[in-house]
């Protein structure tokens, strides 16, 4: 069932919506999901949609984006199955196991025969039946519902998403690609809730791709919880490719056990307002985490990467690198919180945030935040903001390469370091191509700027 609502005062209407629709929200959802809703909505009621008065959201006031006329779907008719057939994947050469979500609802997936024995890939609504123990144990355990009102909002409202379970010792050769497509003729608010469990000694590489297929205004609130058990290897590449009228708040929360090795990479190629929260908790010794991101913005786009890495136990390592290229009047923010607990000796934590501003009007707020309570650790952080190097430009032009092409080459050279961190070779190739296309202004989201009416100052748009 689809409900159209007009949001003016935020909490008031959202709470009313929740109360009115609770029977539908609960219907068909696993017991465990429903059991957390009441508490979550209370937290949401208390905190509300964050404005920039909330410290963690200082650079991104989300309130205006959650207001206005928005549609919400409380049943899975929003999961138009026909959409997935028209969907043109930007990553076509990739041999992946595909899962499609439409407006946050599970829509289609490849045949299970393509998966190794014991691996479960399904809708969150089926998860409690297909992997009851794991689902019970981990759902809602990792996401910071109490701390972040948008996670609370998601926990209260979310009805569907993707569930992936990789049992002990299983190594998935093929990456799993979870594509969420926002579409339809109405402006829409959608929730998506994913849960990924990688058991002991198992390995999973996955992509979370966020797309828009129609020109409406979309607000997406996504929460993905990941549990990486002992000795597991987990990679997630979040490829954001949405038009300028999209607001996405996306939370990726990873819990690590001993000897696990995880990698997250937020590749924001195109979006309207994107807020990416990444939280990693190293809850055991000898964990390794790689947290990366690349954001390419132009026109009035805004990307805010907010990361927090918790070294709770000794002998863990974390590597963090975020890079951004900002054009026109676009803005971005980066917060890198690294927490080292009192007993987390021999911690190695490296963090770096580098930004390339192409115009006078582009803006970045970069904020490293280190909280270290142990005394035998190696932690470093650095933030840079710069422009295209005139000397490098001249070098290329002196070889006969024109100015536009030289710019593209230099922007690519800047972004390249993050692309190199991708541990799936064909995806790396593909992202290289997409990033280059984006810099050349040949990206397929170009038509969207006609819709949103935000003028680009150069050829990057048309």
């Amino acid at each position, binding site marked *: 069932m689809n409900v159209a609502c007009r949001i003016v005062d935020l909490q008031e209407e959202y709470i009313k919506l929740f109360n009115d629709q609770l029977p539908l929200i609960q219907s068909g959802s696993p017991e465990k999901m429903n059991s957390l809703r009441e508490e979550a909505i209370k937290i949401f009621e208390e905190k509300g949609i964050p404005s920039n008065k909330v410290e963690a959201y200082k650079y991104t006031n989300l309130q205006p984006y959650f207001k206005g006329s928005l549609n919400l779907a409380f049943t899975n008719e929003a999961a138009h199955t026909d959409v997935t057939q028209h969907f043109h994947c930007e990553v076509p050469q990739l041999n992946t196991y595909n899962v499609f979500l439409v407006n946050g609802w599970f829509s289609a997936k490849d045949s299970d025969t393509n998966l190794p024995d014991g691996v479960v890939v399904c809708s969150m609504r089926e998860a409690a039946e297909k992997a009851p123990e794991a689902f019970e144990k981990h759902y809602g355990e990792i996401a910071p519902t109490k701390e972040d009102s948008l996670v609370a909002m998601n926990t209260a409202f979310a009805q569907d998403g993707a569930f992936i379970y990789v049992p002990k010792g299983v190594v998935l050769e093929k990456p799993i690609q979870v594509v969420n497509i926002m579409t339809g003729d109405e402006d829409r608010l959608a929730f998506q809730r994913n849960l990924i469990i990688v058991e002991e000694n198992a390995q999973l590489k996955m992509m979370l791709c966020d797309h828009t297929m129609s020109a409406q205004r979309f607000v997406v609130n996504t929460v993905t919880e990941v549990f990486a058990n002992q000795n597991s290897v987990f990679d997630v590449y979040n490829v954001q490719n949405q038009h300028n009228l999209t607001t996405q708040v996306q939370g990726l929360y990873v819990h690590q056990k001993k000897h696990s090795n995880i990698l997250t990479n937020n590749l924001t190629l195109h979006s309207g307002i994107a807020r990416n929260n990444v939280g990693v908790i190293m809850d055991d010794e000898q964990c390794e985490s790689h947290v990366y991101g690349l954001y390419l913005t132009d026109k009035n786009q805004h990307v805010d990467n907010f990361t927090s890495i918790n070294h709770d136990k000794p002998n863990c390592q974390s590597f963090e690198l975020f890079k951004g290229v900002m054009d026109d009047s676009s803005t971005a923010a980066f917060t890198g919180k690294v927490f080292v607990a009192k007993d987390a000796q021999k911690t190695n934590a490296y963090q770096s945030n580098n930004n390339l501003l192409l115009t006078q009007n582009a803006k970045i707020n970069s904020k490293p935040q280190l909280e270290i309570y142990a005394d035998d650790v190696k932690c470093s952080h650095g933030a840079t903001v710069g422009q295209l190097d005139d000397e*490098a430009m*001249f070098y290329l*032009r*002196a*070889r006969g390469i024109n*100015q536009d092409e030289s710019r593209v080459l230099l922007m690519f*050279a800047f972004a390249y370091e993050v692309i*190199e961190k991708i541990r799936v070779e064909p995806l790396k190739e593909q992202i290289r191509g997409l990033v280059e296309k984006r810099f050349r202004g040949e990206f397929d989201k170009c038509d969207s700027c006609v819709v949103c009416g935000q003028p680009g100052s150069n050829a990057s748009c048309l």
Partner: protein
Amino acid sequence: MLVIKDLHAKIEDKEILRGINLEIKPGEVHAIMGPNGAGKSTLSSVLTGNEKFEVVDGSVTFNGKDLLDLSPEDRAREGMFLSFQYPIEIPGVSMVNFMRTAVNEHRKYRGEDPISASDFLKLMRDKKKLVDIDSNLTNRSVNEGFSGGEKKKNEIFQMAMLEPKLAILDETDSGLDIDALRVVANGVNKLKSPERSTIVITHYQRLLDYIVPDYVHVLYKGRIVKSAGKELALELEEKGYDWIKKEFED
């Protein structure tokens, strides 16, 4: 081929070139020497169109065209090449991609079709052999992690690929050990032809043992204060620049 007349150029408010006159004919090798700060590198930057410098007076014609009117990329396409004193590292951009882009831009300028993949690879192979550059250098990103010597060799390789009419070697010898120097000089010599001219900018005479100039000019305080044959370089090596400075001040 190149005619420089009364060239004045400044950076910010400082005048560096204060009336340069120089004519270079096809096939000639000219060495420009001079003490630090004389304006040697500025001259190469101004000729190739670095926008950091502002030309305030004078004219430069290159094969009959007004050079100062052209953008840096058009100067390159007209056949001007600068071997940089400090080549820039461009991580993530492969040598192959970089060179193919450059070669095709030159071809487009001449109204030719882009080079085919197989012809391009053959061209790369031939030129690598010609300038004796290590094969794996061209499999890497442009200058990324190259040693000083490798960067300079790479400049000569690029020169071989682009086949310029006029090559300016800006302190190509600085920081090179003798073996690298020999490789670089051999490369330059192999590319010598009756149509191709070279300007060798250097502080020391050593490079000129390998690349023998037809003329040697001494640049001091933004002017060419002395011009002679190759023997002038030896004299400078022996006596330093002081006598020239003295002569000039007097």
